[in-house]
């Protein structure tokens, strides 16, 4: 390639890298009013519960973190609610006993049966509630969720803010008790009649009428499927037999709280397929609530959700004097240090050829950020480690190809021939390494769940981009930059082997 052509192509590529760099990483004010900001892709990308918090202006946008609530079983109140209750007056007040040093208060009659310690029945009921919550949260397969027993009889739970419908999950998952199905002619559930379980002497558990509830998708649209037994289907079919003449309303409740509410305009004679405004996450939450309630039917106590909190990144931020660094800041600094070390190494060892690696790496990094945002992959421990590993892989592969060319140049070949032979010689090394890592990453993504699955997905993209970066982009950029130099060997810090003269 001629010098002018090389200069034009290199300038264009550098411009693309620079523009992508701004789009991906650099926030800047718009309009000069101090209100509007350009939000770079890295801010738009989902952050896992480990990272995040509001950073670029208080309301600039969502930046990760998680939501947290405390679940209180019926008959258990927080110390604050107890104090408020005491201050509110004395008439008709429930009597409570302090528990766990006054961290929570227990209903003396309901929970302690008039004593000061919780009864065995209450403890068993709480264990059942805890297991039900654990099952519901586990089925979300979400990274960054935590579940902790607090003060013996309450449950502290967090869900990542990146999970669509986190708040709905807390609300629905607090519903404990029997699954019931009601049918009526008004949209008000209180006026509807219960059809499942059958009332009176024939009463059986709901699991005798409903087999399961699950999420399915049809052409990308998620819906909830409620699978009835023959007995359940018969009851539903009978109840909705007049729906074609006058529309009715069907309610599916868990612990007396409505989780599905739909209008019925024809007789239901098959399993119930409920579509509508569900997202994949919200459909999963509804289906999980019903399905787990069928497994944990005998709940003696209800449960309620306490205050909802927004929790910023779970990692402890670092404070240096007056400067407070968030978890995300620390990750940026770590990557900055590694980038500098990489740039210095390549520039010292390979001279101006080092810029080829830097350009390839920057383009790789920007594409990875775009992929994290577009897929989306929540940026957390898994995604960061995957980025670090694939960055190392790209730089090592580039170094291996440079070294292979250096060896060829040393024995007297021209630079063009050295590059060609060098790449030919190291191609299978690079290919083997990438293909094995790609298989490892894909398998980890497909088999593992939560954070490790995100790591697998991020590594799959990282390894694929690294392979393409080394074998195509890096070679192309080398070819282009070579056109700018009259002494390509010197340009790359390559030297000929000194041949000893026998004479």
């Amino acid at each position, binding site marked *: 390639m001629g010098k002018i052509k090389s200069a034009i192509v290199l300038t264009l590529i550098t411009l693309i890298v620079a523009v992508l760099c701004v789009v991906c990483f650099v926030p800047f004010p718009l309009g000069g009013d101090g209100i509007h900001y350009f939000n770079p892709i890295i801010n738009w990308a989902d952050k896992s519960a*480990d990272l995040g918090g509001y950073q670029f202006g208080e309301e600039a946008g969502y930046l990760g973190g998680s*939501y947290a609530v405390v679940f209180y079983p019926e008959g258990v109140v927080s*110390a*604050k609610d107890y*104090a408020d209750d005491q201050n509110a007056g004395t008439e008709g007040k429930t009597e409570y006993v302090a528990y*766990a*040093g006054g*961290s929570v208060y227990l209903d003396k009659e309901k929970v302690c049966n008039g004593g000061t310690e919780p009864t065995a029945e209450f403890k068993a009921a709480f264990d059942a509630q*805890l297991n039900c919550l*654990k099952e519901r949260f*586990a089925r979300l397969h979400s990274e960054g*969720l*935590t*579940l*902790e*027993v*607090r003060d*013996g009889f309450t449950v502290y739970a967090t869900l990542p803010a990146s999970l669509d419908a986190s*708040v709905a999950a807390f*609300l629905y998952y607090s519903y404990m008790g029997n699954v019931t199905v009601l049918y009526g002619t008004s949209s008000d559930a209180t006026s509807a009649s219960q059809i499942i379980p059958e009332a009176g002497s024939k009463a059986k558990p709901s699991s005798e009428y409903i087999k399961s509830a699950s999420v399915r998708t049809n052409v990308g649209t998620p819906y909830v499927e409620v699978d009835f037994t023959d007995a359940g289907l018969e009851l539903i079919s009978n109840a909705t037999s007049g729906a074609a003449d006058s529309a009715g309303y069907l309610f599916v409740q868990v612990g007396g709280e409505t989780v599905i509410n739909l209008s019925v305009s024809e007789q239901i004679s098959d399993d119930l397929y409920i579509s509508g405004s569900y997202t994949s996450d919200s459909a999963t939450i509804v289906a999980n609530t019903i399905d787990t309630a069928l497994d944990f039917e005998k709940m003696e106590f209800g449960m309620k959700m306490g205050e*909802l*909190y*927004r*929790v*910023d990144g779970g*990692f*402890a931020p*670092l404070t240096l004097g007056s400067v407070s660094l968030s*978890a995300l800041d*620390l*990750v940026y*600094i*770590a990557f900055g*240090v*590694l980038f500098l*070390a990489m740039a210095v190494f390549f520039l010292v060892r390979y001279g101006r050829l080092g810029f080829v690696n830097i350009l390839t790496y920057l383009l790789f990094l920007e594409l990875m950020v775009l992929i994290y945002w577009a897929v989306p992959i929540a940026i957390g*421990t898994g995604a*960061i*480690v995957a980025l*670090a*590993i694939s*960055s*190392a892989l790209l730089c*090592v592969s580039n*170094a291996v190809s440079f070294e292979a060319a250096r060896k060829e140049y040393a024995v007297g070949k021209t630079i063009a021939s050295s590059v060609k032979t060098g790449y030919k010689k190291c191609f299978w090394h690079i290919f*083997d*390494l990438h*293909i*094995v*890592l790609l*298989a*490892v990453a894909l*398998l*980890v993504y497909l*088999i*593992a*769940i939560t*954070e*490790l699955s995100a790591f*697998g997905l991020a590594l799959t993209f990282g390894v694929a981009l690294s392979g393409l970066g080394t074998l195509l982009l890096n070679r192309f950029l080398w070819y282009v930059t070579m056109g700018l130099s009259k002494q390509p060997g010197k340009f790359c810090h390559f030297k000929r082997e000194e041949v000893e003269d026998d004479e």
Partner: protein
Amino acid sequence: MNKRFLPGKLLPVWIAVSAILIVVGVVLFSLFGFNYASPEKKTVEISYDAVVYIEEKEEKLAEECEKVFSQNMLEYTAKKTDRELDVNYVAETGNYLLVYTFSSDVKDETLQTAAASLQTALEGNSEFGGDIFVSAHTLAGEQFHEASWRAAIALGVAAIVALVYVGFRFGWDCAISGLVACVNDTLLTLALFAIARIPVYAYGPVLFAGIAAVFSAILWLAQCMKMRENFKDPAYTSLTAQEAVGVSVAGSWKFVCCFVLPLAVVFAVLGIIASNGLRLFLLPVLLPLAVSVYSSFLLAPAVLVPLKSKFDKMKSSRKKYVGKKKAEVQE
């Protein structure tokens, strides 16, 4: 002639080293288990309303809290401020929760006393408004086992797939040696975690053992690549399997370091500079990396030598057989 590195001769030594470490690890594990980070933690929560936030008294409030904690000889491990949200609109209500986390070793009574003194101190201070409430809590984390066993299976399957690839590309003697190295690294990593008492979360040992298997497979792949390239060199034809493997492994340290060093640097720098959560994962991950370097340089080549001799003999006997057949046909 230069003294050559003969890996096969040292096989009993590496087996003994691995066996001793694994046995010691098993004994320590059965006596004390792994050094699991306690799933329990204690907190003191201070809820306050918008008055403190609007009047920018948050720092003062934190100072007051920390003063009371130090008076009660308490040292917190983490501090955060959560924002209360309205459930219906997911909008901020203006109420906040300042949460101090303490080690699980702190006595409940000490924490309750500190919380009570703090409540009195804050109530007596008019600058913070009236609506401040302090409470102490004990939290015990619940484990989700599905994630752990699926992670172990995923990494195990990935390592096996990598070894099958090694088998097809570089020969089954290499794949078997790699498998031995993977199993050794998995067990050795678990043993070293038990011996060194490195604090890990409940999922930690299984995850790190799986990572060791993957690292082991990848590093052995790198060694196999180098061996395949070297064995094409005519200088290697006169060497025995023992010598050829030894010369190739001794000369491949730069090549393998190309993979190991950048990874180690990335893990170490990220682990040191980045935040606590990442550090808990990235610094212990250096252990499986070190173990896989040991097995790819020492154990796996030592296992490969007898296998390679046997496989080479089988190959040459097969060649003879083919020759005879050709001769018969010619007759």
